[in-house]
């Protein structure tokens, strides 16, 4: 199972210069890869392209030899830094989860989600608690590849270990691909099998 980006170039409509130029990247589900780069360098844009959020770009992204589906569930799921920005503020957490899949109790437990949190609204939970939901929501059985874009940057060190530990267990068990995007070198050194420096691949 390979997530492959070929000759990706991208610039925002209002920008003069390309943010990404001829990026080539091949990721598989055998290793945990870390992507390291400064903020504002275009890492997040690349993540959005790899997961199918941005569709207007030059080049091609394929997963398992196929282009990313335009409709329906996306096999490549992206988790952001700010979970409060990706949840409907008028839904209770139960509904937020059910939007993706029917999460079994043992998964909730593994991620330390308390039953009492399910009846709360997003703004009634802290960043760490919300990020647990965000991760669990993305672990739909149809998910084959997970991209974590500064997923734990806003969290305290203990919550960071808890969430990453649980994610890596699931990734291993389900044979999923995992890309960790971070600027935190010690973190990447700790959990990734291989690292890629963004400046080496961005082409600008």
């Amino acid at each position, binding site marked *: 199972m390979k997530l492959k980006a070929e000759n990706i170039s991208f610039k925002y409509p209002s920008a003069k210069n390309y943010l990404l130029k001829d990026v080539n990247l091949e990721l598989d589900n055998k290793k945990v890869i870390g992507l390291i780069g*400064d*903020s*504002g360098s275009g890492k997040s844009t690349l993540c959005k392209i790899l997961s199918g959020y941005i569709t207007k770009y030059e080049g091609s992204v394929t997963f398992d030899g196929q282009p990313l589906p335009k409709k329906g569930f996306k096999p490549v799921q992206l988790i952001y830094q700010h979970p409060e920005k990706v949840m409907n503020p008028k839904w209770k957490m139960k509904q937020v989860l059910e939007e993706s899949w029917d999460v079994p109790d043992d998964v909730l437990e593994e991620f*330390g989600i*308390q039953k*009492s*949190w399910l009846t709360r609204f997003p703004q*009634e*939970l*802290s*960043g*760490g*608690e*919300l990020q647990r939901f965000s991760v669990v929501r993305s672990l739909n059985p149809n998910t084959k590849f997970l991209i974590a874009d500064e997923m734990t*940057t*806003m*969290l*305290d*060190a*203990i*919550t*960071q*270990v*808890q969430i990453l*530990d649980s994610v890596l267990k699931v990734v291993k068990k389900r044979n999923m691909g995992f890309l960790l995007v971070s*600027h*935190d070198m*010690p*973190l990447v*050194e*700790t*959990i990734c099998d291989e690292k890629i420096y963004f400046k080496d691949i961005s082409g600008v």
Partner: protein
Amino acid sequence: MEKVLDVENVSISFIQYTKGLNQRDLKVISDLTLDISEGEILAVLGSSGSGKSLLAHAIFGILPENANLNGKIKYKGKELSQEDKEEIRGKDIVLVPQSVNFLDPLMKISDQAIGHTESDEERKAKKLKQREIFEHYNLGPEVDEMYPFQLSGGMARRVLVSTALLSDPKLVVADEPTPGLDEKTVQETLNHFKHMKEDGIGVLLITHDIHAALEVADRIGIFYSGYVIEIALKEDFSGDGENLLHPYTKALYKALPANGFELVKGHQPLHGEIPKGCPYYNRCEWRMDRCKEERPELLELGKKRVRCFKYEEGVEDET
């Protein structure tokens, strides 16, 4: 060194409507105690959403209407009333806000840095001072005429810092000054605080970023479920964390990727679900029977503070 700020047993709660006309009193900060001396940087470290920004709002008297503030906030030993806060804010105590969003988008930088003036002379004097400080922070004359949207992240940070310093403050409160900045700008921002310290200014740094706190702070207050549970010296965050006192602080230190990435179970109790006794009771490896029912007070141990019964007899030598 004279103390600039004392925060004593501050609690903040909000009145919320639950269903219909039922109200509840939601406690967000239960007991916050800390002090800052001249030329000292104290960091308050808490996770996002823990309510630590409310501390800054309480000091400046800008809490919302439905908030209830209890406890004492003292400036140079004198307790501050709401009127006092309004009088000295922006003069003796200033805020470095979180982001450029706190600037007026329709006002030129120089004009908003100077603020309201009574006369032309005052304006000219302030303008000179503003230019001088801006220059010191490497902001050229062209910046005076810019609007906020024209500033880069690093420039905006320098504008916020130098604007805060215009009134020769004795205390600077910085609310999350580092997120969303690249490594270089973070370093630059932290250096600004080091310079303030050298000038004898007290700095209260409110942050979730343990690396930033360790980089500049003299002491670090750990905020847990609405309580300050420990105030540790920066030097204590070294080795195996053996000099840290509270079990949570030790766990936090050991969970850093560079210090072992150790897993600890459990989560901070939510506002409104905090147990009767010690807020850390459910996760604590040292818990005793009394911890369940009784809430430990913040003990004073020299420059350090800890909220744990284990240290009632002082700090034992653990070797």
